[in-house]
């Protein structure tokens, strides 16, 4: 992306993020309807799962290392998070293991 486009993108992302935070204060003075509640409840989990898959889109599953580092580190992150429930610990352990795996050449 060119620099000019990056600044526009930052502006767009900032405005949209603020809009989502502002939304209930402007539009939902009363109790929201059941339809809105349904989507508010179910869209965030869907987006998060889609984003996890999106993060893995660059992996080549048929060439060595077959996405093994990614899968291993996701498993480590998940186990730590289910067990300890500490986000920082889970994120950093997974990331550090991933960096070790792909930088050391243990898994080609």
């Amino acid at each position, binding site marked *: 992306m060119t620099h000019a486009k990056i600044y526009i*993108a930052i502006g767009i*992302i900032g405005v949209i*993020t603020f809009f*989502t935070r502002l939304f209930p204060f402007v539009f939902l003075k009363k109790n929201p309807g059941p339809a809105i509640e349904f989507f508010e409840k*179910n869209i965030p989990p869907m987006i998060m799962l*889609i*984003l996890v898959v999106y993060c893995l889109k660059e992996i080549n599953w048929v060439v060595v290392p077959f996405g093994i580092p990614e899968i291993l580190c996701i498993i480590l992150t998940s186990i730590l998070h289910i067990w300890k429930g500490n986000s920082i610990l889970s994120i950093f352990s997974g990331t550090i293991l991933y960096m070790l795996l792909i*930088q050391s050449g243990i898994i080609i």
Partner: protein
Amino acid sequence: MTECKNHFYKLLDSITLKPAFITSIPVMTGYCSVGFAFGLLVVSTGYPWFLALIMPLFIYAGAAQFLALSFFTNNTSFVEIIITTFLLNARHMVYGISMLNKYKHASHFKPYLIFSLTDETYAILTSVKIPDNINNKRFYFYVSFLNQLYWIMGCICGAFFGNIFAFNTKGLDFALTALFVVILIDQYKTSTSKIPFAIAFICSVIAYFLSIKYMLLISIFLSMAILFFFRRFITNNDSR
């Protein structure tokens, strides 16, 4: 002039600042370290360090900032950026609902309080018990402000550290994947219906095979359409 000075002293009210600071300590550890990783990623992917200042200043949303970097590298279209950012942050709309009453009388603090309503700020402000002798709106403001300060400091420190010490950051971007995995697990634990997870998984795999370039858009719209058609089934499942 004196009025302005008085206003400044009123803002720096140490009786409120102290409990606000103590409340914000857990967020400090988290924001400094995740912010640090973000700043490091900014410079190691070749972007100028001041992106690690303006992004936490104007965007101030962890997941959206990390995702923004991948937008920059993938040269994602503005339409896709708008839709994905909106849906990624759609959870904030839910947060606001439970803050409507708390922020009702926040007067001139209100715009900033709304701007700075991140996951962590929401979590501590909804769970904290404010002592009786303390001005609520000022307490909310201090906690929100301190949290953003930690986040900005973390981001900038990461960027400077990454500039000074040239070390191998290959694989650091996995932090984004790990962040999403962690949020996903938290959401899985608290959600009543597991069907949306299945829908999203199937849709994202289909979208992956259809077009990697447009997989975000395809999977988001496909899964929302399916969610819409199966809404009756999912609601019934909830009430069981």
